[in-house]
């Protein structure tokens, strides 16, 4: 990894398994490949550390979402929104902000040799997919911690407090889907000539069902007259979609990492 990568601590490094020292070389490194969970933790730690030190994705995504709310205010010429309109504005803004994060997800690895370093390591390649997806999930959670209150403050007519408990389920399911599809598409697009263009073009149609599910599930929460809980039918559809595309990403990701 070319990115800043602090030496592994005693807990996560390859030296942590004393029972394996039958295979240990004099230097202390072991022959047996490290367990996937350890690789996963190391990769995730590296992702979050890089993001904390460079602050490349999260501030940009959050600022973009808030700016989009302002743009919507002027474009619609409305001070407050409610119902399906509110759900649509929230999800379009979150989705486009997520696209910024998706586009940047693998750029450092592709440009600065991170892929090569990872491929040289004798570890399960799926760990990279899961670590990147978890990192993207974390970015999305931080984004929503900022964007959802900002949406309540700037645009939403009915009070945010009453909608918030019901909003957690669609937000979580939507985030999981965006993270799974986004990671796959980011890996697919990053080593092409026109990656900035191809990433969103590939991801948006694949994310349409998530927008449908999330917007429909959150619309009754934002109703000005008679707020209700999210319809279970939509949460079920979202969960099914997340599951299917999680499995597909898991199945095909290895083929993107062969050279």
């Amino acid at each position, binding site marked *: 990894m070319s990115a800043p990568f602090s030496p592994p601590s005693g807990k996560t490094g390859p030296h942590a398994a004393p029972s394996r020292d039958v295979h240990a070389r004099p230097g202390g490194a072991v022959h047996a490949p490290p367990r996937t969970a350890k690789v996963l933790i190391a990769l995730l730690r590296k992702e979050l550390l890089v993001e904390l030190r460079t602050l490349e994705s999260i501030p940009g995504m959050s600022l973009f979402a808030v700016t989009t709310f302002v743009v919507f205010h002027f474009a619609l010429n409305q001070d407050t929104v409610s119902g399906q309109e509110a759900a649509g504005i929230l999800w379009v803004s979150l989705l486009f902000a997520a696209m910024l994060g998706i586009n940047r997800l693998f750029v450092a690895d592709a440009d600065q040799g991170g892929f090569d370093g990872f491929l040289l390591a004798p570890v399960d390649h799926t760990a990279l997919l899961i670590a990147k997806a978890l990192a993207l999930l974390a970015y999305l959670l931080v984004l929503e911690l900022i964007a959802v209150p900002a949406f309540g403050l700037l645009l939403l007519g009915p009070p945010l407090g009453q909608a918030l408990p019901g909003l957690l389920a669609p937000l979580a399911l939507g985030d999981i889907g965006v993270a799974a599809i986004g990671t796959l598409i980011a890996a697919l697009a990053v080593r092409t000539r026109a990656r900035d263009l191809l990433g969103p073009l590939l991801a948006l149609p*694949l994310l349409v069902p998530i927008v449908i599910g999330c917007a429909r599930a959150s619309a009754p929460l934002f109703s000005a007259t008679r707020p209700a809980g999210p319809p279970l039918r939509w949460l079920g559809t979202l969960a099914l*979609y997340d599951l299917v595309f999680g499995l597909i990403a898991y199945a095909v990701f290895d083929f993107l990492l062969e050279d």
Partner: protein
Amino acid sequence: MRRPSLRALSIATILALCVSLSLVFFYAPIEVEEGFLQKIFYLHVPLAIVTLCGFVIGGLCAIAHLRTRDQRWDLRSYVFIHMSLIFGVAVLITGSIWARGSWGHWWVWSEPTLVSFLIVMLLYATYQPLRFAIEDPERQARYASVFAITAGAFVPMNFLAVRLSASYLHPRVLGSSSNLPAPMALTFLASIVAIALLFATLCAYELAAKRTRILLKARSRILGYQS
């Protein structure tokens, strides 16, 4: 395995198209509610079915490519998806004409099948830009296969999601062939066979052209020509 000859395939396609078109115009009865306009159903629906099958078969060929690493499977996957894209444009145009005729608008959002089809087309429209943005031929084939598998699985999922979201405002006209009167069902079946044959023939021609081009390139490389 011997491939069916292009000439036999072409003749069969032309015959099937003639038979199905004569059935459409001279045998199938005029529908009571929609009148003559309903005849576009025998073109639009088979085209849509064949297109979607082409996308899914392209995905299956991509799975075969990733499993065997045989470049011929990638070629097949590419040709199926390419041809489906061309057929898909025809589906959107005929669907639009049908919508204009029966509902008065060129585009209706309440028809879930048409909307899903548009989303699928928007996704597959990025297949070629993605493919040709990668220089290395081996990686190009691999990435295109990954896309074809993902998109192939997206086709049924997307139809499910969009159908759920649609409120059935318009009655579905002849949505399934099970409740069709017998002459209409026969005509519909003949149309599906004809369109599927047309698809297969065009794919066979494109495959033959691509194989010939690859062969020519290899030969001229052996002979030392600059391509």
